[in-house]
């Protein structure tokens, strides 16, 4: 009897030690504050290829000098009516479209809408039922005239920051979690025009936002990184999967996590028009999250032509106007040391950069 007790005690000690080791591993693996240890691989001029069109310099017609007496046999020609001052063509990614979304210069917060000369963000909340389960999600409809309004940030020096902290620090209008690359060792990483990591993940699709405002998603193994780099990429995320194929919803994905989960995704309509979507999940009675196929359908219904899934689960959060608006599962505020995708006023450029 005593011997049996000892065996049980040893087994219990082993299990306790196992639990401790697993917790220790989890802490070092994905809970410990991280700093990005990768190095910058190339540092191209961040604005070298920014497609900011400028109004052409037009010559204004010179008015005829007045007060000069005309010869008697010359009939005066009617003076041309003064042409109105040519208004400069709207510049930026959207050209002249969606002008009503922007203001003349002032920045206005109106409830769930932000408008300024360069940025417009319209935030909407939705409650739907999918397969008899409630789903709550947020959509930030984004219009930007300058590609530098869509930026990515990540903790570089001091760890222990969440999406809310990074959003506040960088003056974000709206921000979501990114692809959580700090805690992974593979997957191409390009942030704000800088290539930080080129080691590809063999089983992940990637998403690239180019400096001309176009966004493209690539299936795993079906792209050449050199071709992408040659086109001057501005951001590249490596998580996935790709959610739309030729603008249509998909049913098969390059992922093993297709079941219901909190989700985060980025959608693309046209250069300068994007959306960020965060779906709350794992909360009975409030929101149970979406399956990957349902997320694909959602992005299709939103009208996106390209869409890409970012890190979900406890990572996915959305911040609007310095406030965490989504409800991450387990009552947390999102993971520490997650990279963020944020929308902010464009980076001011010096004359030299222009």
């Amino acid at each position, binding site marked *: 009897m005593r*011997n049996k007790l*000892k*065996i049980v005690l*040893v087994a219990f000690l*082993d299990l306790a*030690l*196992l639990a401790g*080791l*697993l917790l220790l*591993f989890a802490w*070092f*693996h*994905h809970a410990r504050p991280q700093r990005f240890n990768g190095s910058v691989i190339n540092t191209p001029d961040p604005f070298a290829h920014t497609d900011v069109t400028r109004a052409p310099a037009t010559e204004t017609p010179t008015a005829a000098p007045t007060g000069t007496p005309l010869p008697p046999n010359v009939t005066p020609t009617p003076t041309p009516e003064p042409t109105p001052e040519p208004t400069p063509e709207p510049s930026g990614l959207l050209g002249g479209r969606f002008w009503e979304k922007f203001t003349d210069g002032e920045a206005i917060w109106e409830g769930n809408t932000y408008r300024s000369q360069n940025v417009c963000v319209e935030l909407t909340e939705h409650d739907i039922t999918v397969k008899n389960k409630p789903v709550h999600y947020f959509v930030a409809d984004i219009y930007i005239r300058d590609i530098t309004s869509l930026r990515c940030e990540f903790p570089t020096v001091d760890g222990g920051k969440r999406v809310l902290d990074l959003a506040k620090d960088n003056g974000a209008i709206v921000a979501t979690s990114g692809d959580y690359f700090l*805690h*992974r*060792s*593979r997957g191409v990483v390009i942030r704000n025009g800088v290539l930080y990591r080129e080691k590809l993940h063999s*089983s*992940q699709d990637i998403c690239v936002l180019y400096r001309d405002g176009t966004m493209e998603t690539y299936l795993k193994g079906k792209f050449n990184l050199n071709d992408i780099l040659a086109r001057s990429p501005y951001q590249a995320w490596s*998580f996935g999967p790709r959610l739309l194929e030729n603008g249509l919803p998909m049913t098969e994905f390059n*992922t*093993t*996590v297709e079941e219901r989960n909190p989700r985060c995704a980025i959608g693309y309509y046209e250069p300068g028009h994007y959306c960020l979507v965060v779906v709350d999940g794992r909360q009975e009675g409030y929101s149970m999250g979406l399956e990957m196929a349902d997320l694909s359908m959602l992005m299709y219904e939103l009208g996106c032509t390209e869409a890409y899934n970012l*890190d979900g689960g406890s990572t996915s959060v959305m911040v609007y106007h310095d406030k965490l608006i989504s409800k991450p599962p387990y009552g947390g505020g999102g993971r520490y040391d997650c990279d963020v995708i944020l929308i902010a006023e464009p980076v001011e450029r010096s004359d030299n950069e222009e």
Partner: protein
Amino acid sequence: MKNKLFDFKNKRRVFRVVLAHITALLSVMTITFFIIDRFNDAMEFMTSDLSKVLFLVLAVLSLISSIVTIVCLWVNPDRIKKRKNISQPGDKRNRV
């Protein structure tokens, strides 16, 4: 039997017991990560640098454990035979 389970004076025995337990724990951890990785490979439980260190430690401990076991079986077969003979009933050496 009373002192065998927690006999910390016999250093060789303690070493072998601890080695066996740690190897078993690391093996269970590896199996756990393998299963989790099947469900969510994005977490890189099988491919991260930390996991690779774990696998290395497991491999080294397994190797040591194997060597210890092989050596014990190689060196002491006679002793094992002797013990078996001792334990046989009616053996004169039992009375010594």
